[in-house]
């Protein structure tokens, strides 16, 4: 039938709003199996909102959200998580008043055991193992982001949504984080990653999409899109 593999995650004409204010005006986006899609664009373009819609945190007001070709409009975030969508939200995706270990414990909500979680996290990021009884809020920014990413390591999701992974982090840490993501991709994970600044994510991205004013205005090879991104910044 269809030669192209069906996308794992797909938005078709997706609209979403905060109260009466519509923020996404018909977004089309597809993440194929095993691919990495970078969602780029200036601040306020609607990237985080798109991520929230995909994760089930924000309902659609129009259009469709599809997981593996199936329309799942209205899916709750907890069901999306159980279906294999792992979303690391903007900012730090950790609970500051829980310890590292307790954070990993909470992350077992989709079926993994605490032992598996700890194993996966401490092997990849030994520093977390050393600090397992420390409050997450007292970790450095990079360590918190490692902890957030550990949820993806231990729960074996099908799709990973990453929002501004690099925000506020030193370049070296960012590289380390994306190395980890690249390894997960090599194991077959599909990733949708939103970044305001393209540099960090382009090496691992297969496709890039440029988002402006609540619409995806261009999709293409990462290099092309980066050029457009810089011109859209310069052009206002």
């Amino acid at each position, binding site marked *: *039938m*269809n030669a192209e*593999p*069906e996308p*794992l995650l797909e938005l*078709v004409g997706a609209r979403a709003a*905060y*109260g009466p204010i519509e923020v996404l005006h018909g977004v089309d986006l597809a993440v194929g*199996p*095993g691919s990495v899609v970078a969602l780029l664009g200036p601040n306020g373009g609607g990237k985080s909102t798109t991520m929230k819609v995909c*994760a*089930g*945190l924000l309902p659609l007001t129009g259009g*469709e959200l*599809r*997981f*593996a*070709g*199936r*329309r*799942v409009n*209205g*899916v*709750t*975030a*907890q*069901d999306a*998580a*159980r*279906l*294999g969508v*792992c*979303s*690391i*939200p903007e900012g730090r*995706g*950790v*609970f*500051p*008043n*829980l310890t590292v270990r*307790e954070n990993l*414990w*909470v*992350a*077992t*909500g*989709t*079926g993994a055991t*605490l032992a598996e979680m700890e194993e996966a996290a401490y092997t990849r990021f030994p520093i977390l193992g050393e600090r397992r009884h420390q409050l997450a809020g007292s970790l450095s920014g990079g360590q918190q982001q490692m902890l957030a990413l550990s*949820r993806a390591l231990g729960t074996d999701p*099908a799709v990973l949504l990453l929002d501004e992974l690099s925000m506020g982090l030193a370049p070296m840490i960012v590289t380390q984080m994306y190395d980890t993501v690249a390894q997960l991709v090599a194991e*077959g994970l*599909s990733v949708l990653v939103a970044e305001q600044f393209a540099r960090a994510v382009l090496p691992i991205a297969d496709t890039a999409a440029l988002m402006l004013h609540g619409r995806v205005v261009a999709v293409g090879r990462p290099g092309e899109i980066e050029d457009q991104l810089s011109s859209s910044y310069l052009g206002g």
Partner: protein
Amino acid sequence: MTTFLTFTILGLVLGSVYAIAASGLVLTYNTSGIFNFAHGAQAMLGTFLYWQLTYGWGLPMWLSLIIVVGLVGPAMGAALHTLIMKGLRDTADVTKIVVTVAILLGMVYLSQWIWHPEDARIMEMFFGASAKIELLGVVIRAHEIICLVVAAAIAVGLRLLFTRSRVGVVMRATVDDPDLLRLAGHNPDRVAMLSWAMGSTLAVLAGVLITPIGGGALEANQLTLLVIDAFAAAMFGRLRSIPRTFAGAIVLGMTATYVMAYFPTDWTWTGNFRVSLPMIILFVVLIVLPQDRLRVAAVRTRERYRVPSVRSAATWGGVFVAVVFLLSLLMEDSSITTFTLGMTFAIIALSLTVLTGYAGELNLAPLSFGAVATIVAFHFGVAGTGLAAHLSLWGVLLAVLVTAVVGGVVALPALRLRGLYLALATMAFGVFLSNMVLRDTTEHTLFGVTFSLFPNGTLIVPPLKVGPLDLRDPLTFLLTAAVLFALIAVGLVALRNSGYGRRLAAMKDSPAAAAMLGQNLVRLKFGVFMLSAAIAGLGGVLMAGASGSVAGDNFTIMASLGLVMLTVVGGIGYVSGALFGGLMAGVGFVIIIGTFNDLAMADPAMGTVYTSIGQLAMVATALIGMGVGKNPSGTVHDLVGSYRALRNAKPVLVGGAAAEAVLYVLALTGVIGNWWFAILTACLGMMLPVLGRMLMPAAVLGAEEAARRRSTPLELAGVEEPYTEELRRRLDRELGLPAGAAPATPRRTGFPLAAEEGDVHAVA
């Protein structure tokens, strides 16, 4: 020494029960963000049930305990969460508070209905008061040991739950970030429900334990307030920390017993002071402890209010006074006085419109400010004696002024607090006033002056007389109250439309943003609080004048809470909401209960049925209050909205007015009774918008909406019209088919579950 030890043990026991109650409160507040004012009422209801099982029906103690603490407690909490609390997300603090207040009132009414308040009910200590041991000369009863052990077990149990179990850790995580919890695959609603079940169980347990300590007599209001004392303990932990809550509870219990032990016996007010102590401590703790900083983001809430223009408000004010006059022609003198009483309550309710509706702050004890004004007017404002006694204008003005100052003094320390804390501070003030001032019936001598604040427990307050205006005449009083209500209401609308009003609204929407714009929030809040207290004071004095004599019971916190709830039900953002709330709280209940009692007298065979219906009406009102969560803008808002839609349907409006005029003439000439007039008017008022929609859909709904309502039924789609892409999508949607051309066989794609499940929604 023995005295000291004895009272220390007693203090520890009292403290441990407070701790049990307060930890339940903290638990629910943290997982759902709702401060449960009904916590004490839940304890009360559980305790009554326990009494019924053990003493009423003679079940063995352990069985009743299992039923009440093990089954009813958790079920009550889970039900409250599922039916009501879950729906309170994204509502303003005010709405959350009012809904739990409505639950409190509903539970109190319910218990008074089931367990008649005039029958005496006594609960014994566990194993009886004689089961005791002696240690170092101190007698400790078995019941007290049980309290201590249970509290210790709960402290340890909660500690283990929160650190050693996943569900406990998830509960703590809910406080931080419910959305992140969802992303990790948990359901915050389920977590919240569990915590409500636990909180409710703790409340019930505390009620069963504390009743015998407090003397054993079961009385619904008193028992409810007893557990409310635990609020102070919860505040020690800033509503977050359970260990600190326990510490606060112990301090609270100890202080209360030491006051009993060591205050000189000839201080007549010691007993009152001891009862008020938790509220005094609550007030102090609220002020002393640092509170959460203002949140920067605006609170996005579902409450919506339209602001009427001053002109339309003035017009409606005139219409209102005219309608009151026309109605008064239908009434006898006694009904006119009742109506007047309701009108004075409506004036008190206006104090809430400006404070809560416009400025977003809450005063849970409006009647207490009315009480302050009444006391001042009684002591300083009465001129003449006997039948010539009257209130002077200066007396009323002084009373209003003093109340404004008292309002300022109460609010000043609490001004930097967020809504909930200010609400708690006003409640603490109200309970304190009821316990200390309104019970100050014996005489003291202070600095050579002998006085008592509330002599003999009743104040006789004569009506106001200013020049030729003598309010002793019922009709004059009614019309004066109506005119005053209209004047204040129009004044408030003018205030809301002024720059000051817009600043208040800005403060309500986003305190932090308003502060950043250079507004002095403290001054703004201070001013509006004093204004509100002054209005409540004026209403209070008039209310006392209309009743003739008032007792402490007229100003209880329960009565205040009822007024607040009904005003919110009416619509806290509107002066007409205040009219509804005031009339209902002031006289609505009296009329409803009275009518059904009369019916019961007239027809003894049906007596119990009628009395029950009367009680049911009270509970039903509380149910409406709970409904505020679904419809936070209030009934008046909806009614006004539905009439606004009729604007273009003039024939319907004119027809309605004509029908109403006919009804009025029929009532005036005595063809139909006043009850029929009231019932038919209510029906007409509610039916008119519906009629309008049926008769003139295009004018009422707008052409587009009317056309949409007429759209083709699904089974006829595409029969008489071209089969478009749009139509095909609609069919897909309505039939639940996947959009677009669905592939014949869905391939396995890497989603662990999605590919196998027929419908994702089924996974939930």
